[in-house]
């Protein structure tokens, strides 16, 4: 890849697009309302003597780790003022716990990768230097070129807290050959939950699958998507963006429809439930499709790279890969982002904060984003990235990659599609998953939904009581 020319192109394209898109995102460029945002000491970097060493904590598994390491090496080689070291902290959970422990002991990184839903808790640590400070201080003009929803996710009350970095979205995976065998048209995958059910029935009755049509991972992330698509928030107070969320908002038409659908699918033998909190079953649905037990599932777009590699190896002659947008109750809303953001730390020294900001700009440049997305399967968060050959080639080769990007760039951008902000996200996930599990063992959907709502809200209340 002729890197310099790509960079130049990217810069040109980026600027052009940034200018074109600028009016579209006025709220993001606005000065934060919260006056208490700490300053970003940009000038400290030039005053620092010698090389400024900074550390980034991440949790990427091997293939993705190599992709971020490659970017880091490029950055380190491109200049001599800043040197970045990466430390792999193995999982989001362990990383966050090490970060919290570091708040006591002082062992903290200068940049930390935290999964999307950790946003409220990161704000509550009172250790984050909001990226917004540096955006303002640096007069950073490229935010308009970002996929707007990526920025909206990490923006609360006008303050951009983290840089979106690795972004993903859930997509619908299906086996085109099983569709053909069942007499379904593989070029028109189901778009609504009801269509999934109808197709699952055909897949099962035709004998195209040995177990069930659909592999159902009960990840609350999908519930959030369905709510957002139909313009419902997941938590109250403007999805936690106008004020601290105090309750989940699950008991509405979409919530009930989703629970009813899941219940019908499982009790009718059309779906195999798969407890998403259970760590040993993360990829069961995809393996089930490979083995012909299942033919459809919803999973993260980040899995697409692996899947296409496996299929290309010829190991699964009976599988044809189909990727389409996540089926949903119809609505004018949009889907929300997943993945993780990168946070700066107020605990770092000024020159390290300034250096870390320079590195974040590099990681989120159009060229870096294109390179990272092509290597990992994450969704580029720069609009101009997709005009670059790396992404164009990728989309031509595996069209499924475009599906996730399109999901995040279509539909309404509002508080619902921006995604929820709330504390103790693991507790909320557990509450909802447990209620769904009960439903799969016979509880009525309305009762299960009510239980999910009350248990999740109690979790929020318990967390909120502790951060006052």
């Amino acid at each position, binding site marked *: 890849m002729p890197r310099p020319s790509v960079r130049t192109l990217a810069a040109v394209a980026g600027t052009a697009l940034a200018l074109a898109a600028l009016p579209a995102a006025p709220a993001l460029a606005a000065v934060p309302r919260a006056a208490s945002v700490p300053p970003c000491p940009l000038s400290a970097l030039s005053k620092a003597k010698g090389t400024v060493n900074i550390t980034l904590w991440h949790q990427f598994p091997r293939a993705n780790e190599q992709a971020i390491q490659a970017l880091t090496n490029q950055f380190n080689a491109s200049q001599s003022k800043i040197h970045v070291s990466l430390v792999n902290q*193995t999982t989001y959970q362990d990383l966050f716990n090490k970060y919290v422990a570091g708040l006591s*002991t002082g062992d903290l990184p200068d940049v930390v990768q935290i999964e999307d839903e950790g946003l409220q808790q990161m704000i509550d640590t009172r250790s984050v230097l909001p990226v917004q400070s540096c955006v303002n201080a640096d007069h950073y003009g490229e935010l308009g070129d970002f996929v707007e929803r990526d920025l909206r996710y990490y923006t609360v009350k006008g303050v951009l807290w983290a840089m979106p970095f690795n972004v993903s979205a859930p997509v619908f995976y299906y086996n085109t050959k099983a569709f053909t065998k069942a007499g379904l048209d593989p070029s028109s995958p189901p778009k609504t939950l009801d269509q999934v059910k109808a197709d699952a029935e055909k897949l099962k009755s035709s004998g195209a699958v040995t177990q069930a049509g659909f592999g159902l991972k009960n990840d609350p992330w999908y519930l959030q998507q369905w709510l957002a698509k139909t313009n419902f928030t997941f938590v109250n107070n403007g999805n936690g963006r106008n004020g601290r969320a105090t309750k989940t908002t699950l008991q509405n038409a979409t919530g009930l429809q989703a629970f009813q659908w899941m219940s019908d699918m499982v009790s009718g033998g059309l779906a195999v439930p798969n407890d998403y909190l259970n760590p040993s079953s993360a990829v069961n649905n995809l393996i089930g499709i*490979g083995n012909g037990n299942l033919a459809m599932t919803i999973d993260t777009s980040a899995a697409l790279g692996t899947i296409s590699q496996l299929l290309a*190896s010829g*190991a699964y002659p009976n599988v044809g890969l189909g990727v389409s947008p996540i089926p949903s109750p119809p609505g004018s809303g949009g889907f929300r982002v997943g993945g993780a953001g990168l946070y700066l730390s107020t605990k770092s020294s000024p020159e390290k904060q300034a250096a870390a900001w320079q590195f974040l700009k590099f990681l989120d440049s159009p060229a870096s984003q294109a390179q990272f997305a092509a290597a990992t399967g994450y969704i580029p968060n720069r609009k101009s990235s997709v005009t670059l050959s790396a992404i164009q080639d990728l989309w031509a080769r595996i069209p499924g990659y475009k599906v996730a990007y399109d999901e995040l760039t279509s539909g309404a951008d509002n508080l619902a599609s921006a995604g929820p902000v709330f504390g103790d996200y693991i507790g909320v996930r557990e509450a909802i998953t447990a209620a769904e599990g009960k439903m799969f063992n016979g509880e009525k959907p309305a009762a299960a939904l009510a239980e999910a709502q009350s248990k999740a809200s109690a979790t929020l209340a318990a967390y909120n009581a502790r951060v006052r």
Partner: protein
Amino acid sequence: MTAGAPSIAVPGPAPAIVTRPRRSRPGLRLVGRYLLLSVLALVVIFPIYITVVNSLLPAPQIAARPPKFFPSSPIWSTYDKAWSNGHFGHYLFNSAVVTTIIVVGQLLTAILAGYAFAFLKFPFKRTLFVIFLATLMIPFEVTIVQNLTTVVDLGLYDTYAGLALPFLATGFGAFLLRQAFLGIPRDLEDAAALDGYGHWRFLWRVAVPLARPAIGALGVFAFLTAWNQYLWPLLVTKDDRLRTVQIGLRQLRSASIEQVNVTFAGVVIAVIPLAILLIVFQKQLIRGLTAGAIKG
């Protein structure tokens, strides 16, 4: 049991022991015994066997139906990948260093404490014993954050000492060796006292050799717990430099299907040092058998 001091002090081969092989039993019974042992052995070893098989299969074949019970064309490259991706080269070295420190420390503290509880009389012995047992009732996970602060305050963050220090003594070890020492016949102690042995000499010359199987078991147990630590090494190290095997294993975990065989290879790599230790230790156990059966 009135053996002289020298024969106590050197619990060597001790030839005159236990039962003679029974030639009178019919062969059928012998076959039955082997059959029973073999079936049980198969049940115990099968999960490990299938893991080794899985580490050598192409990833899609791990999920194949019917399952593969034998890798027809083993893929050894999974071990290469696991070795480099899990950083096993220097993680194994770090684990070996930390584990050695912990095993030696635990054996010493447990021998001393176990001996005190078994052979010495002192006030509050029962209370102190309960205090030792009480340490077992506090899961390490509960104290881990405060211990991190302590280790940082001691200036031992990101050092081998910091990795090992909290584990140099366990109530388990003291309890296990107390039980073993209590099994030593009183006559031996009386005989040793007559020969002018003090406690220190009796401990190392008589009690420790006689309790060798239990000490061996404790050594293995200490090795295992130290080797398999994950949370503490992750918290108390700054970066890759001092990290240990289980962290490498966790780094191999992967949501991607194509790498499942590499995860299994990593599991096997992490187990091999323990397996070697076990085989070596097994001999010690058997020798312990003859040493334990001293006769007068």
